[in-house]
């Protein structure tokens, strides 16, 4: 039998070539493992695009604006004493037009109008409605409202929104302002200024705005989350480790082969997610290839964190527990419920050490602004991935063998 030759030398390959061959065999082994683990295969390839399609179908079901429920409490009919002219008045000629404007504003439901001059407990009634969640805001018309408007003075309205649900507060304030603008327009209050708002980088009308604005959070979450779940057990489930380590393959080569295998899977995942997103009506102002690159970068950061967890954990249970710890922190500092800009500096630093803080702005910049992939967010994701890759190699190097 003819002896195999490698670069003119007989025998087995040595050095870098040998290492490369071992890594490639390791990659093949990983693919075989994935192929035989059907649930994991489904999780890797089917679940991510399925989530996107499901999300899209949910968002396109109904896109009606949420209704803001308001109770108006009016003190306008009460006695007003004008200190300049020493005249007592009870003008309330602008109260009903204001209430009419509120009632006719789309997406506002006027739950009750209570005249405080007839019901001294008007504010208590409204407050209880607010307390029990029956309304979203109270609008208070002060006693001097109509008189001040008649005299050309500023007329102030007081709104009391329920801040229990923080995410809805701005929408409530927006709607109330819309009602106030309608009141001014209906009663020919010529304003001294008009703000002409030009909205740049809007989603075109024939795309679903809600779906597109939420995809900036959903896409990085799906990519980072799924790749993290996929890789948290890949190192820790290798057994028996001592037998594995008796082969010429060293720990670093084992890990490299896993990284290569799961990066190839990530390529397919990112393509599937991109295709599902575009098919579901995602609007991209930039290039699709840039979005694909962003998905790859976010996904690889998830892979590197998962590999680190898997290298660090001694048992599968421990790996799942570490996953939970990382997931909680990753989710809490992602900016989903508290904007990252609103976080104190120490928490912001932790947020920026995780991929979601960079993934969402990166996807937003590509889809809505048409910016290129090359950006500080991509660099940050790269640094995070490198950091966790290095940590995973350190963790596996320190791994003790079981006897």
């Amino acid at each position, binding site marked *: 039998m003819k002896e195999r030759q490698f670069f003119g030398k007989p025998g087995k390959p040595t050095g870098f070539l040998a290492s490369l061959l071992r890594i490639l065999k390791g990659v093949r082994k990983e693919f075989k493992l994935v192929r035989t683990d059907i649930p994991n295969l489904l999780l890797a390839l089917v679940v991510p695009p399925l989530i996107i399609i499901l999300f899209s179908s949910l968002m396109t079901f109904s896109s009606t604006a949420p209704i803001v429920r308001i109770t108006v409490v009016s003190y306008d009919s009460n006695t007003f004493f004008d200190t300049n002219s020493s005249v007592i008045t009870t003008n309330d000629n602008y109260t009903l037009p204001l209430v009419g404007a509120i009632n006719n504003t789309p997406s506002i439901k006027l739950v009750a109008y209570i005249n405080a001059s007839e019901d001294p407990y008007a504010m208590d009634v409204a407050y209880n409605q607010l307390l029990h969640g029956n309304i979203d805001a109270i609008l208070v018309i002060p006693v001097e409202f109509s008189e001040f408007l008649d005299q050309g003075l500023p007329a102030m309205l007081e709104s009391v929104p329920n801040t*229990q649900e923080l995410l809805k507060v701005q929408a409530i304030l927006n709607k109330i302002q819309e009602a106030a603008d309608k009141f001014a327009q209906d009663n020919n209050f010529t304003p001294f200024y008009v703000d002409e708002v030009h909205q740049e980088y809007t989603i075109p009308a024939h795309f679903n705005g809600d779906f597109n604005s939420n995809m900036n959070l959903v896409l990085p979450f799906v990519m980072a989350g799924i790749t993290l779940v996929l890789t948290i057990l890949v190192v820790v489930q290798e057994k028996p480790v001592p037998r594995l380590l008796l082969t010429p393959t060293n720990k670093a080569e084992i890990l490299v082969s896993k990284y290569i295998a799961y990066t190839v899977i990530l390529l397919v995942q990112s393509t599937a997610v991109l295709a599902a997103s575009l098919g579901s009506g995602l609007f991209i102002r930039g290039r699709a290839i840039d979005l694909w690159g962003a998905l790859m970068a976010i996904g690889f950061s998830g892979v590197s964190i998962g590999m680190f967890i898997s290298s660090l954990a001694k048992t599968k249970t421990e790996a799942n527990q570490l996953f939970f710890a990382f997931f909680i922190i990753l989710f809490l500092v992602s900016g989903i419920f508290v904007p990252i800009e609103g976080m104190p500096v120490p*928490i912001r630093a932790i947020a920026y050490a995780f991929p979601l803080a960079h993934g969402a702005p990166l996807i937003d910049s590509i889809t809505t602004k048409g910016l290129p992939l090359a950006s500080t967010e991509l660099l940050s994701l790269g640094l995070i991935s490198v950091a966790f890759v290095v940590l995973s190699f350190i963790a596996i190097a320190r791994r003790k063998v079981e006897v």
Partner: protein
Amino acid sequence: MANLSALITKEFQRISVDKRTLALMFIIPALVLVIFGLSSGGGPMTLFTVNIITRDSQVTGPSVNNSVHDEELIQSFQESTVFVLHDRVYNMTNDSSFDFCFNQNKNKLRQNDIDAFIIIPENFSETIENGTSVITLLVYVDGSDAKVSQAIHVAIQEPIAYFRVRARLTQNFTMVVPYLEFDVPYWANQVLNYAFPIVISMIMLGTCMNLTSLSIVSEAPLSRMLLTPAGKTSVVFSKLVTATVIMFFQAAEIFTIAGIFGMFSRGPLILVFLSLLLIGMVGICIGLFISAVSKTEQVANQLYIMFFIMFTLFCQSFLPVDNFPPFLQVITAVFPLSNAIPLLSSIMYNGVVIDVMALFVLGATGLLFYVLALIAYAFKEVEA
């Protein structure tokens, strides 16, 4: 009874050996609370970062150019509580420099350096002095987020109001002043208290699910255990009791640390503590169910992760559930976190009011999963 106490003792011994699970239950909440608690400042609000371009110094006619009032308006923006000026004010005196500046700021908008830029027109001060026509302020805002672009119209009312008072232009002036009700007071830790209902609900639910999701499936050999006088119901009940005791100490730890860092509650603290216990109980019951239906630890782990991610994503606090089909709104409305968060926030922010529906649904969910766990365990096949 003797069987039950023996089973409970066995469960405590089993859990005491699993030190990492215990560490997870007690260290993670402490870590999160310390991080949030040590941070001061911050909050759920963000300010608009804007640039202002003023063309008021541009000569628009043969008459004397007036450019006094734009400085008053700019000062109002600088003193505003909702706007932050990103750069110096751009004072444009001719069309070509304006075009350059306009494109520069449009690029900053694109790069997310600013949220909006405002253009004061060239006849601003003259129009104010003459009072003959309406001034148009041009506002270019990032329209990719519809809520932000609507919010700027509300936000701009504040500096405009300051300016109008300063310039004595108060006629035909209606302004809405918001007073936030049921918010976290300014003297309390904003980040910790606004995050508490969501963060702690997630942690309690997740760690308690984790505690019990392997408790049944990791029991081996099941057949030998079932040869003892202990019945299947006693086995599950003993796990519930043990996990509840540990969860009680976890809730006490969370409560104590949060109190040290300034947890704010309008309602009675005992109700907050009892709510934490209820959320933990629901997590324990869901974990028992997962453990009872799973054949292997790996399946149990994957189910636990899937359930937790699903509960978190669809807890009605992050995604716009109003846009979901009615049937899905009903389904997500009975998820544990969809009720745990409103229950905690109604006590902490509103005061004595308890969200009765949330309380009922949480209790029913816990009971349902416990019953399902018993049924699943009753049908669990023994290994030969």
